[in-house]
């Protein structure tokens, strides 16, 4: 039976949703968040009853999660790219790797994971 607990934060910035959820799911894999941006109230849901230590840990996560920024939002979107978007990037990578292989001396292939991380890192700097 799902259990809900309402928290009130003192922080003055909106937490980055993806970072917050990751922190909460490290505490409980079933954690979910209900929150109206601009308010200080968060209702957290999980599959089992909230314990006092879990409540304390969740409160800390709410207060310390990184603040929302355009860069973090972009990274979360990149992490959730669908097939079409990944196909675009990886098709270009295939051609880049072909060029790299023709060089003298040839350069090693860049892996899909490496290029997606590079895109993610770039989004973090813009």
């Amino acid at each position, binding site marked *: 039976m*799902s259990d*809900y607990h309402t928290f009130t934060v003192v922080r003055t910035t909106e937490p980055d*949703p*993806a970072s917050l*959820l990751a922190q909460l799911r490290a505490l409980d*894999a*079933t*954690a*979910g*968040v*209900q*929150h109206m941006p601009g308010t200080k109230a968060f*209702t957290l*849901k*999980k*599959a089992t009853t909230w314990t006092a230590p879990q409540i304390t840990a969740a409160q800390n996560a709410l207060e310390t999660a990184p603040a929302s920024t355009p860069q973090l939002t972009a990274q*979360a*979107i990149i992490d*959730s790219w*669908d097939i079409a978007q990944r196909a675009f990037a990886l098709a270009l990578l295939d051609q880049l790797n072909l060029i790299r292989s023709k060089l003298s001396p040839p350069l090693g292939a860049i892996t899909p994971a490496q290029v997606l991380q590079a895109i993610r890192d770039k989004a973090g700097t813009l």
Partner: protein
Amino acid sequence: MSSISTPFSTATEQATSATGTQNNFDLNAANATLYCTGAAPVFTGFTVGGAAPATGARVVLVNAGSGTVRVAKEDSGSTAAHRITSPSARGQIVGVNGSITLVYLGVPSRWDVVVVEPGAPITIPYTAGDFTATGSMTWTVDSGDVQALRYLQQGNQLTLTLLIAASTTGGTASNGLFFLLPNSFTVATQGTQEGVHGSLSDGTPYSGAGVWVIITATSTTKVAFYKPDFANIALGTNNVAVQGTAVFYID
């Protein structure tokens, strides 16, 4: 002096605490204001002074209670000449402090809904089975996931607000989430998307027009939510949110 006032006289106030279905409900006067304090009365027809109403008779139903007041269209529970006609096949329902004004028309011998003040939004009771999904996907919405579920009806126009957060999708990923409309309301116009604006999050947020889609099948009783690109909604536990307000036409 006749106890039956003329249609153009000062309105007579009448109060009722009636609940449930009310057939051939008797009004004290041909120009009446009926204050309803009972729980969810549904009027199927009115008489005036125990007799069939005359052309021009008028009644204003005022929801003075804490629930809803409704009139049913062409309901056989009342005698034909006492029945009600309305723009919507579902009659008309109003929330707290709402009102419905009806005037009796000689032709077609029916009370006609002529003015509606919807009143406060009407809360839709939570029912788990109202939330479904396309294909083999499941959409599980617990009662605690419902932050708001309410509507207003004004004739054929329905304003629906859903605020759902931390719900769960399971089964086989598909692209649509469904919500069953209350009161058997049925979508009137295929593909209608007037006034829709909402957001859908399956771990990644999507927002704007195109998230809400009034389902296009004929005579459907559901509204549907899709990502703007109609891609599959990711399966997730306690991380699916659907929020927004839509205005669309019902039958």
